[in-house]
């Protein structure tokens, strides 16, 4: 019984950073900018939140600094790719590599393998919802999570609203789908690309804070472990729709929860289970595109 409860709780727990990256990446995806820098931005959020909290002893400052740094990275990314039309893959890759390099340098300077806060405990961040907490299963799923976790799930609805019910959402989609049409309307297409990327950067900073500060009160380098790329996979599987992309993010979160919990009983072979999320991702991507092109008689899928 507890095994199931743990898996359910962990599914939510592990889905959160992926979900946040998905919600952030969706707008860039819809604006036709492939933002592979989600990973780097998330790591920057994790690193800066911990570093600033550690140096100042103030958690709130850690939150704010992480958000600010991620927005700055988003701004650099947009400046290079949107304003100066740089290749998104190359610039994204550069960001993904430069962030762990800087973090590594700072860690080395501090002569430490990680950053941890001794005066703060993981349980400080957990919110227990009174009544629901006592209900079996449901309590496992709903209660005992961090603030950003709750925010991310409510975020699905807000992002949906933003995408389908506001001008901003419509314009971002127009920019991505038919740039010519957008220009003809007199829309500043670059502005919408910038905003889409910055929104992504903001969400990634939250993902990073959640990953390092809220969940473990610990930063180790490269702790994002490809979650940003898993998020990109989820966005593609859900074709940029907030709800279906979010569902894929949760599936991938559940796969990791399964891996972690099964690993507990596996002894030395535990590391083997770590491949589960990645294998699940590969299989899901293949199945999604197989279903999409199942009945196609046209050669080359065109």
């Amino acid at each position, binding site marked *: 019984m507890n095994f199931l409860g743990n898996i359910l709780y962990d599914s939510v727990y592990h889905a959160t950073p992926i979900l946040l990256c998905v919600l952030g990446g969706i707008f860039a995806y819809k604006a036709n900018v492939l933002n592979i820098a989600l990973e780097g931005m998330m790591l920057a959020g994790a690193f800066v939140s911990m570093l600033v909290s550690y140096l100042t002893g103030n958690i709130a400052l850690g939150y704010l600094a992480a958000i600010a740094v991620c927005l700055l990275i988003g701004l650099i990314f947009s400046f290079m790719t949107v304003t100066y039309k740089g290749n998104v893959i190359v610039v994204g890759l550069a960001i993904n590599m430069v962030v762990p390099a800087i973090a590594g340098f700072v860690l080395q300077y501090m002569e430490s393998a990680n950053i941890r806060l001794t005066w703060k405990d993981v349980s400080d961040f957990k919110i227990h919802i009174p009544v629901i907490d006592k209900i079996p299963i449901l309590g496992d799923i709903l209660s005992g999570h961090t603030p950003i976790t709750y925010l991310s799930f409510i975020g699905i609805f807000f992002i949906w609203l933003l995408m389908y019910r*506001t001008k901003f959402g419509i314009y971002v*989609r127009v920019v991505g789908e*038919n740039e010519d049409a957008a220009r*003809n309307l007199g829309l500043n297409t670059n502005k919408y690309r910038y905003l889409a990327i910055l929104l992504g950067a903001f969400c990634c900073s939250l993902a990073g804070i959640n990953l390092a500060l809220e969940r473990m009160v610990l930063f180790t380098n490269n702790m994002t472990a490809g979650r940003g790329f898993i998020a990109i996979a989820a966005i593609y599987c859900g074709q940029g729709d907030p709800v279906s992309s979010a569902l894929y993010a949760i599936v991938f979160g559940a796969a990791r929860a399964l891996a972690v919990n099964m690993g507990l009983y596996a002894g030395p072979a535990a590391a083997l289970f770590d491949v589960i999320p990645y294998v699940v991702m590969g299989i899901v991507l293949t199945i999604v595109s197989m279903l999409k092109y199942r*009945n196609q008689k046209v050669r080359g899928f065109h």
Partner: protein
Amino acid sequence: MSIIQTVDLTKKFDAFVANDKINISVEPQEIKCIVGENGAGKSTLMNMLYGALRPSSGKILIEGKEVVFKSPTDAIRHGIGMVHQHFKLVPSLTVYENILLGSEINKTWKGRKSPFIDRDAEIQRVRDLIEQYHFQIDPLEKVENISVGLCQQVEILKMLYRNVRILILDEPTAVLTPQEVDRLMDNLKELRNNGKTIIVITHKLREVMELSDSVTVIKQGKVIGNVATCETSEQELAQMMVGRDVVLTVSNENGTPCGCEVAYSVKDVCTVNGEQKEILHDISLEVHKGEILGIAGVEGNGQSELIKVLTGLMTVTKGKVTLCGSDVTNAWPDELRKKGLGIIPEDRYAQGLCRDMTIPENCIAGYFGNHEVCKSGVLHGRTIRRLADSYIEKYDIRVADPEGEISQLSGGNAQKVIIARELENHPKVMIACQPTRGVDIGSIEFIHKQLLKFRNEGYSVLLISSELTEIMSLSDRIAVMYKGAIIGEADPSVPVEEIGLLMAGAKVKERTA
């Protein structure tokens, strides 16, 4: 007073003068057609009129007052709206969202604007608009699910919603079916009667005669003539456009349709689309030697799929295709070409040419395995260039730089590259799909003559076209496609109305084939 007038309007691209001192004036509430061959400078002129290009010199006057447009939005503010040949619509949005794009209505909350869009109000506004101008379209449908004709209505409504007084349409009938063309003309005439001024750019003279009040002919960036439509004829306009007498419809004489040997046959071919729905139903055709078989039909009745199946871009679920006695069902395009099938594809830049490659490279596309251009896997540059030069000369392809990119060519000349390539590789059967779409009058005449010559040499042509006149004047026999099936066959001598009926799906019981 003219509602819109240009005075010595000139546009230069570096040394090239696209528009040279254009003077035109359009009266309020008239339909003005601007005709000219491809590359004559019509589009440049229109782009200046609606603000996409800045004139190099000259003035634009609206109701006598000079205006300067910085952008299309500026032009719209002055009451000039443009409907482009390639629609600027967003497929995943609905009709009403597309119409209101850029001028959305927000919900108000306690007298203040909220960030959310008021969908009900938007839908109602669009419904009113559709009613007012007697259009027929469902505002809730997604644009990706509606026909091209309806997409065009959406574009027009988009402009009407913004209260434009002058509507410019660029080649509006290029993508429409005959019925949709009639609809469009009715719509435009009604708009004129409601007080709008309409400028139509086209090179289809029949439509000019039917639609317009006055015509301006442009040739090589200059205005050649202004005439009232009632005082001119198709012949005269064609002559003005090309600068010489042209044969509008080549006559299909000397045809020797011998009912003897079958060169190409298609038997009971079926295929399905992505949703497993059958889109071709038991198509059977036989093309004899020395014959042109025309396939007529309103666009979207399975011709595209049939072309894809016959040219190796799509596979069949059932049926058999035979070329000169050998089975070529589901063969890939290169095998088809090796076995003697020439392919003039439906969309020249999608399947026929590679836009970013040079003219010589495009001249061997699909045939680069031929021994004379490719020896042991290495392409022979000089031979290829010589080949291209010979095509350019023989097929009168007008190029500025014979070794430059193919995209520099106008539609007609690009099409001639394909025709040259396919004919010079001596196929036995030619599949010609929309061979003259988007091609100027001079080139149409040339291409038609080439196809007839090929036929007269004893080879076969399968001609698939949505231009009924083209089918009628070239074919020895006509098959009509309707909803993915061959609904009937007719002789080109039967009256147009009979084929029109077949195209609309009415079965003719007694035929004299």
